């Protein structure tokens, strides 16, 4: 590993991955030195040539990855915490990400005297005494998943758990309960609405654009920007030809 040729950001990124102490206060040279020291203690002189990995090496950090990374802001892909989060995308779609920490896995395996636990991701709906499971999938220790559960107005949440060798399920983390959006006019009509507008309510909704809204996609700044961008791209692609055009017109 030629640490001497790397930038400070690159060195810091590696130090972060390897969890080198005091890294944030180190200068570039100090970082390089610390990394060299680390290589010596962990991989040993011969380890770089042979392909054996010593047992001290954390599995996620193969030494081969120390190749120069392009100057970038490298981020961890997980934080080693127990978490699961459910976010609504729209009334028909939910996004869930989760992670189970190494410590939790270790403790679980230790308690249940087993090696390789399975991870189960579940989605629930309902209120206090009436909970039902909507989905249950086998997943990895961390990751994310899109569900296509059509649940307008429902309260949803996700749970990540593990199975022991007998197939018993143990929850590890549970998400917040999320109210999903509705996708149509509510059936709920309060009394006073009838007294105030009565049958006119349908007409009011028509004037509000209820039927046109559903016919075509809602106009939005997002769509406008992307349309503008497409046009813009065409301009850039044809900038040579417009150059010629303008010379005729402009001069």
């Amino acid at each position, binding site marked *: 590993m030629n640490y001497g040729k790397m930038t400070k950001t690159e060195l810091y990124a590696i130090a972060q991955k390897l969890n080198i102490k005091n890294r944030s206060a180190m200068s570039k040279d100090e970082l390089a030195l610390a990394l060299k020291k680390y290589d010596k203690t962990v991989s040993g002189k011969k380890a770089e040539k042979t392909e054996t990995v010593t047992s001290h090496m954390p599995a996620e950090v193969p030494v081969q990855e120390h190749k120069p990374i392009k100057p970038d802001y490298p*981020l961890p892909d*997980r934080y080693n915490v127990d978490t699961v989060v459910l976010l609504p995308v729209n009334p028909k779609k939910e*996004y869930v990400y989760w992670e189970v920490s190494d410590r939790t896995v270790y403790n679980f395996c230790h308690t249940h005297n087993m090696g390789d636990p399975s991870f189960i991701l579940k989605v629930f709906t309902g209120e206090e005494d009436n909970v039902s499971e909507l989905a249950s999938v086998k997943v990895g220790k961390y990751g994310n998943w899109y569900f296509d559960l059509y649940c307008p107005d429902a309260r949803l949440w996700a749970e990540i758990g593990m199975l022991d060798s007998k197939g018993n399920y143990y929850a590890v983390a549970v998400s917040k309960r999320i109210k999903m959006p509705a996708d149509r006019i509510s059936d709920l009509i309060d009394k006073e609405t009838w007294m105030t507008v009565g049958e006119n309510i349908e007409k009011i909704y028509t004037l*509000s654009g209820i039927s*046109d*809204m559903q016919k075509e996609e*809602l106009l939005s700044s997002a769509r406008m920007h992307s349309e503008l961008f497409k046009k813009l791209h065409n301009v850039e692609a044809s900038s040579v030809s*417009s150059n010629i055009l*303008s010379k005729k017109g402009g001069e």
Partner: protein
Amino acid sequence: MTGYWMLVLHSHLPFVKHPEYPYFLEEHWFYEAVSETYLPMLMYMKQMEDEGIHFRFAVSVTPPLAEMMCDPMLMDRYEKHMDKLLELAYKEIERTKGTCFEHLAHMYKDKFLKLKEFYYGFLNRSLIGGYRHFLEKGYIDVITCGFTHGFLPLLNNTYNAVRAQIELAVKSHTEKFGRAPKGIWLPECAYFEGLDKILAEYGIRYFFVDTHGVLYSKPRPRFGVYAPVYTESGVAAFGRDYYSSKQVWSSKEGYPGDAYYRDFYRDIGYDLDHEYIKPYISPDGVRVFTGLKYHRITGESDYKEYYQPEIASRKTEDHARHFVKGREQQVKDIAALIDRKPMVVSPYDAELFGHWWYEGPEFLYNVFKEMDRSDVVKAITPLEYLNEYPTNQVVKVNPSSWGDKGYYDVWLNKGNDWIYRHLHFMAESMVNMAKYHQNTKDDSVRRCLNQMTRELFLAQSSDWAFLVTTGTAIEYAMQRTKEHIYNFLRLKDMVEYCSYDYEFLGRLEYKNSIFHDMDFRVYC
């Protein structure tokens, strides 16, 4: 008077400041918006005030935008940018002598001179001061937004993250505009159930949602989107009117697409000889928009006629008349069905007027002028309407946004979903560390935590996820997200290991400087 029209302009740009480069492309978003939208709008407001034209609307100036408007480095660069534009306009007058473009070069020179005069004169170099002037007169209501335009429903995993977005927004707004905001433009109009409680806590009286945010609420809204509704905590929600939005937003039928309006894409930055235009484009030779554009939309093809400002100006009058007529018809139709004066809410991105649609500010001026003459429909601010009709139906507003498809898809999809794992972790860490170090006397800890708060806020901007989805400036958006997460984690390490890289910290404090009075305890 049969009913009301409520214009809402959402002015926002993400916080972009790069002191480490003498020229930075994305900083120009701000300079262009100032010259093309904010200054022209303020000038028209002044003109309406002088001419005695009745005008009322709500305008958001988001905290990052307000921060940039007050940033000495950015404003210094803006002033130089304006001088350069003027210099280019003078050069263009020489170059186009005797051609059909000559009077257009003069048009730009005159416009830039007028902008300059207004900026150094009436505004005394303070854009914020301009908004304050009209706010204090009661013509407009200046409202706030999430502190860094964070997409609140997707930050809601940590309650404090949403609360911090609101708390800092109110703080920053109060500092800049001299009074606490009464209204808020929710970033991307994005609402989730329970958000109203936080708004109420900070004295916010109203917000806006898209059409289906009100129409799909529970129970059914009895006046559709033609009256505000109250949430359970007593904050009013105004729903966007579909038809008036469409007249302006639609790329096909909308006014901005008229063949006589100025074309956005034909710009001399792209058109002219490289050697000639070099001093006015990116120093590395990459062509960019200069703002000097000589052609009109003409039609679908690449063939463009030259721009005729007099015709375009008359078009804004025609369109304004058409728009006001449409609103008159709307309020008449609806007033026949309900027992109060209906209101039509038309929210738009402020930058549409002037930046994308060159004649937009003039169009709005003509709309107000025309409406002033109408005895059917009248412009009104949200607060004025709430004062006239303080009693409204209480409903549960539907979670929604004004993005494509109406929900959260634009800000949460396969291209940008990775952001949220980081944002949530950062917010959780921030809460823990803020509580732990609450009473710290250690200046290094305090500085690091304050800067971590800034980095977290900046990472939360919905603009990054948005740009990734629309494919504009995708690389910059990714880079900015990663930069702030990376900075945050590195500062966190510093605090946890009690070892500080002061050079790094100092650099961030100067560069990512949003809100000088940042206090990490907003996360307690």
